[in-house]
C-alpha cells in the first residue's frame, strides 16, 4: 500500500496510477495524453485524476478540470522545474481546488512546492515520514507571495 503525504499527514493512497491494479470504480490517475486521446475516460465510474508530464501545457487542461478531482504533476528528475509553474497556474489562474500532487519528489523540494500550491506529495523516499513533514516547516519566512499551504511568520512581497 502506497503512502503519500497529504496536508501534512501520511495517509494510505486511495488513488491508483493507470497500469496499477485497480478495482472498478477505484480512483484512477490517467496520463494527460491518454485522457486527451480518449474521452471515454470521462464517463468511467469513480473519481478521475490526470497525470501531467513536464511538457504538458496546463492551458489545454481547462476544459477537463471540472471532471478532475486530482492533478498529479510529474517531477522526473530533481532539477525539473516546469512543474512548479504548472502548479501555480492550476491554482492561481485556473482555480483548481482538488488535490494537487507532486509526483517523484524528495523532501528537500517540499517547501517550495507547497508555496506553489501543491498539497500532496508522492515521494521517492517515502520512508522518511517525519523528516518530510518537518521539511514543510523548514522555513517560516518567505520573500514572495505563495499558496497558504505553509504558515509564514513574515513575508516581503504580496500579490
Amino acid at each position, binding site marked *: 500500500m502506497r503512502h503519500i503525504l497529504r496536508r501534512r499527514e501520511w495517509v494510505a493512497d486511495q488513488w491508483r496510477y493507470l497500469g496499477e491494479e485497480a478495482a472498478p470504480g477505484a480512483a484512477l490517475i490517467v496520463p494527460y495524453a491518454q485522457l486527451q486521446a480518449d474521452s471515454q475516460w470521462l464517463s468511467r465510474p469513480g473519481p478521475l485524476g490526470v497525470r501531467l508530464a513536464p511538457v504538458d501545457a496546463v492551458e489545454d487542461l481547462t476544459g477537463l478540470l471540472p471532471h478532475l478531482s486530482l492533478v498529479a504533476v510529474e517531477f522526473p528528475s530533481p532539477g525539473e522545474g516546469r512543474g512548479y509553474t504548472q502548479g*501555480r497556474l492550476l491554482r*492561481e489562474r485556473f482555480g483548481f481546488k482538488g488535490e494537487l500532487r507532486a509526483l517523484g519528489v524528495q523532501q528537500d523540494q517540499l517547501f517550495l512546492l507547497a508555496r506553489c500550491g501543491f498539497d500532496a506529495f508522492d515521494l521517492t523516499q517515502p520512508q522518511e515520514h517525519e523528516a518530510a513533514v518537518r521539511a514543510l516547516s523548514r522555513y517560516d519566512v518567505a520573500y*514572495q507571495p505563495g499558496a497558504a499551504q505553509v504558515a509564514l511568520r513574515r513575508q*516581503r512581497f*504580496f500579490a
Partner: protein
Amino acid sequence: MYRYDALDQALVDQRVAEFRDQTRRHLAGELSEEQFKPLRLRNGLYIQRHAPMLRIAIPYGLLSSMQLTKLADLALRFDRGYGHFTTRQNLQLNWPALGDVPQILAELASVQMHAIQTSGNCVRNVTADHLAGIAPDEVDDPRPYCEIIRQWSTLNPEFTYLPRKFKIAVTGSPEDRAASEVHDIGLQMMRDAQGGIGFTVRVGGGLGRAPMIGQVMREFLPLGDLLSYLEAVLRVYNRHGRRDNLNKARIKVLVKSLGIARFREQVEAEWQASAAHASKLTAAEVERVRAFFRPQPYETLEDIDATAGRDNAFLAWYRYNTRAHRVPGYRAVFVCLKAHGQVPGDMTSKQMAAVAALAERVSFGLVRTTHSQNLLLADVPQRDLYAVWRELQDFGLAMPNIGTLTDMIACPGLDFCSLANAGTLDVAKSIQQRFDDLDYLYDLGELEIKMSGCMNACGHHHVGHIGVLGVDKHGEEWYQISLGGSANGFTALGEVIGPSVRKNEVAPTIERIVEVYRRLRAEGERFIDTVRRVGLDPFREGAYAAHPAAA
C-alpha cells in the same frame, strides 16, 4: 548599505539549518550525489578538480569592513589563507572541506552574508556598476533595485529550478560598467518625462557558447512593474526554455529561436494574465530599501590637488588607480588585485583584513568588489590619498595598472576548475612578465584582456578588446585569440583572428598585436578605437607574421 531585518536574518539562518541537515544526510549516505548536487549547487558549492569550491555571494559587490574581515578569517581558518574574487563580484574559496561548509555558511549568516544561489540553474547574484552611487554620469543608484531583485529571487518558489543559470545586472549609468547587455536580463535605469524611475529591459544577452547581445524588450518599464515583469519573463523561460540540451538551455537560445518580437508577445501576454497574482513592488518597500543607500555623511571639503609635490610613483598610481567622485574633496580608489606575478583576482587573508581596516578608517567602512576583479574604496577624502597609497603599497595592492593591459580578467582555469580546457593562470603570468615595463603599459593605454579557460566564458573573453580562450586540442592546451570585443556602453563581440596558438605563444602574439596598434594608431587613439577603425586584417597579418600557422 542594506541591513538585514528579522525576515532576512531568519531566512539565511533557516537556510543554514537546512543545508547542515542535507550535508549530514549526504555524508551518511542518505542522499545520493545526484540528489545532493542540485542542493549543494544552490548553496554555492561545486566539486572542483582538487576539492569543493565555495562561491560566496557579494550582492552587487558591496561589503562592509566587518564582512570583509569575516571573509579573511574564513579563508584563513577553512581554506589556505586566500580567496578569489570573480567577474560576478563574488568570492570563491578553493579548498574548503565539505563537512566544514555548513559552519562556514553559519558564520557568513552571522555577518548578513550567504552563498545562496551562487551556482545551479537559478537566478544568480545580481550585479551592478562598481561606481554605483558615486558615478558622475548616473541616472540613479541601482543598488536598491538590485537588493529588491536579490530578495525577490532568493528561494523563489517557482524559479529555483530553471533550465539553466540566470544572470541579472542593473546599471545606473549610460556607460555600462556592469556589462548588462551580456546578461540574461540587463536593466538600464532611465527616467521618464516626469522624472519617474524605470528601466530599459534587455533580454537574451550572454557569453558562453554562442555569445549574444541582449535585445530590448521594453524601452521603459516603470519601477512599480519591475517584479511582475521579471516574473513574466522567468515564467515564459521556465516553461519553454530547452531542457534537453545543456548547451541550448540559456534564455538567449529561446529568444533567438522565437525571435524577439514573438518572445516579447508571449511575455506581455503572460504579464497581463498574471497581474492578479504577481509580486507587487510598493512605493513603501522601495523607500524602505532606498533609505539604506542614502549618500554617506560626507564632510564639506574642497577639491584639492592631491598630486602637488608628490613623486612620480604616486602620480602614476593616482592617474591609473583612482577615479573622480561626485562629491568635492573625495575620490574613489582601486585596490589592485593584478600585481604582476599574482593570480588576477586572488587576495590573501592578510590583504583582506588590511583593506577592511583601511576602509574603516578612510571610506565609511565599505568596500566594493568590481567586475574587473579588483576592489574599490569608493569614498576616500583626497587629503588621505597619499597615506592610503603608502598603506596599499605595503600590502602589494597598489600596482598602478588599472585599465591597462595587465589589469586583465581571468577565470581560475584548468588549475582549479573541472570544466576548463586549458590553464589561464600561467598564461596571465607570462603576459604580466612580458608587459612588466610600466612605461610601455602606459603607452599602450586603455586595453582590456579577458581570458577564459573554456567556452563557458567566465573570463568574458568575447568582450575583451583582446580575448583569449583556452581550447583543448588532442589533450594539449591551445589558445584562440579574438579582437574587437567590448562591454562598456558599446557592447561588441570580438572576432577570432586566426588559428589558435600554443601556451608559450600567447604573450608574444599579444605583443605583436599591440605593436600593430602602435604602428597604426592616430594621435591619442585607444587600442579598441584603432581596431574598429582599421579592421582586423592588419592585426591578423601582424599577429601571425613571425609565427607558423598552427595546425
